[in-house]
């Protein structure tokens, strides 16, 4: 039983990471109807930036916040410079550009910092806190940080003028313009926030999976699964979906281990994690594309 609780707890910690990335994906999807395939690589790149600063002697938290700030600016610039001209381009062109961004982030990171795996520090000292036996210090820290970020974003969108303007611009850009909102800048800000949230996720997970240019691939896939499951047009749903997928991932592995131990038959384990995510993605897309909490889009002829 205790082991099961441990699995659920660590599933929640993983889920927190997926929730962050899923939220970043949803923020961009809701405002632009694009899927940011490069989200994972951007987060990875931000993490490398923070790592580099730490190497240069900057403290963990200053590096953390600096990286978040740089990512925010980077996201805004990417939207303004790379994506703006493509507003009316065919879907394939846009998808290709995202893949191009993905490739560039990955290859530049690989060149600048090599493909060797690096250690990434944790700011949550092992002995200080952590519900001993149930969940580790870093994992608990990840969940706490994620919840703080999510709460801040919620408050921002719900109760501030800028947040309201961004929500309006995402929901109905034409009407937003008619209300005097500079919709183009709202999109850019949305991108900046998404990049920043992604950076947080990357920096939180780097300690667990070790830092290397390919670390976000699987995580991105799980974030997609979570976002789709919760509803890719619903920020709250995406966050919930992220947590669900995190716990599910661990439960499936746990079940697989139990079966192997009990019956000596290996059905599923750690090596199938991406396949499980793929199955979730395809299942949700075919059975209920709007996810559990998303909205159905009706196409007008």
């Amino acid at each position, binding site marked *: 039983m205790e082991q099961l609780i441990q699995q659920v707890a660590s599933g929640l910690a993983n889920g927190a990471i997926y929730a962050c990335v899923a939220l970043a994906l949803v923020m961009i999807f809701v405002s632009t109807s694009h899927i940011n395939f490069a989200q994972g690589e951007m987060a990875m790149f931000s993490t490398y930036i923070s790592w580099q600063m730490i190497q240069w002697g900057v403290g963990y938290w200053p590096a953390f916040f600096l990286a978040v700030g740089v990512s925010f600016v980077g996201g805004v610039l990417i939207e303004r410079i790379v994506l703006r001209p493509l507003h009316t381009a065919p879907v394939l062109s846009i998808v290709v550009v995202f893949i191009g961004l993905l490739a560039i982030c990955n290859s530049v990171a690989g060149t600048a910092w090599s493909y060797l795996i690096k250690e990434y520090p944790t700011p949550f000292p092992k002995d200080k806190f952590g519900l001993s036996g149930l969940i580790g210090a870093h994992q608990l820290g990840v969940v706490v940080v994620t919840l703080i970020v999510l709460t801040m974003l919620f408050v921002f969108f719900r109760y501030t003028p800028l947040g*309201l303007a961004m929500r309006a611009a995402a929901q109905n850009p034409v*009407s937003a313009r*008619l*209300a005097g909102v500079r919709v183009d800048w709202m999109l850019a800000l949305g991108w900046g926030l998404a990049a920043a949230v992604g950076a947080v996720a990357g920096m939180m997970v780097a300690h667990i999976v070790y830092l290397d240019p390919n670390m976000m691939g699987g995580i991105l896939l799980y974030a997609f699964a979570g976002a789709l499951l919760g509803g890719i047009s619903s920020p709250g749903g995406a966050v919930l979906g992220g947590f669900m997928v995190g716990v599910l991932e661990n439960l499936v592995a746990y079940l697989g281990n139990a079966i192997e131990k009990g019956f000596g038959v290996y059905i599923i384990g750690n090596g199938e994690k991406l396949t499980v995510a793929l199955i979730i993605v395809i299942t949700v897309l075919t059975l209920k594309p709007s996810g559990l909490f998303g909205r159905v889009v009706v196409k007008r002829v």
Partner: protein
Amino acid sequence: MAAFLEVSGLKAYYGQTQALYGVGFALEQGGITTLLGANGAGKTTTLRAICNMVRTEGTVSFNGQSIRGRPTESIVRLGVAHVPEGRGTFTTLTVEENLRIAAYTRGSMGGAEVKRDLAMVFEYFPRLKERMQQQAGTLSGGEQQMLAVSRALMLRPRLMLLDEPSFGLAPLVVQEIFRILRRINGESKVSMLLVEQNAALALDLADHAYVLETGRVVMAGPSAVVKNDENVRKSYLGY
């Protein structure tokens, strides 16, 4: 003296298709003017063209300033409020949020100024006050129209463009709204340009009228004159 809103030689395009072929008219400050015409005549396009929501050529000037080709949101900030076809309500936001977003351009949103404006809006449309926290998409058609007009009012506009405010509404509701529009025009000194398919109603409300046909102005004059014109009576008023 330059007219308040002056349009001349206005051409508009949806992609490659041309919709307006050189529309021209002028509004004086303070009045209500109506644009009449059949479906597809270009009335909605004209309003959209003024706000640069479609590709345009020609001249559009507001209060002496040329606004053709300027980004929509900056035209709005100059004092032009557009109540679009279909109301354009933010359906997933609450009524309060719909109103407050229009005050966004003025910086602070909880300020006393905004509260005063909300009070003004409720004076014209008391029904909205009860529905403040309701999701805008759940309002009735008439209430959504009221909300759309209120949003425009919250912008403190000098000129209000209204696109078919009577569309899909019951006659009594339309009457109520048109009465309130006249009040707004008189009390808050907001000039109005009204596009309507319901010619009778529009001619009753407006001081001046222009008639559009396939992207061109074919008739202009005070509404009393236009109302009695034989062609207009046959084509748009039914008698």
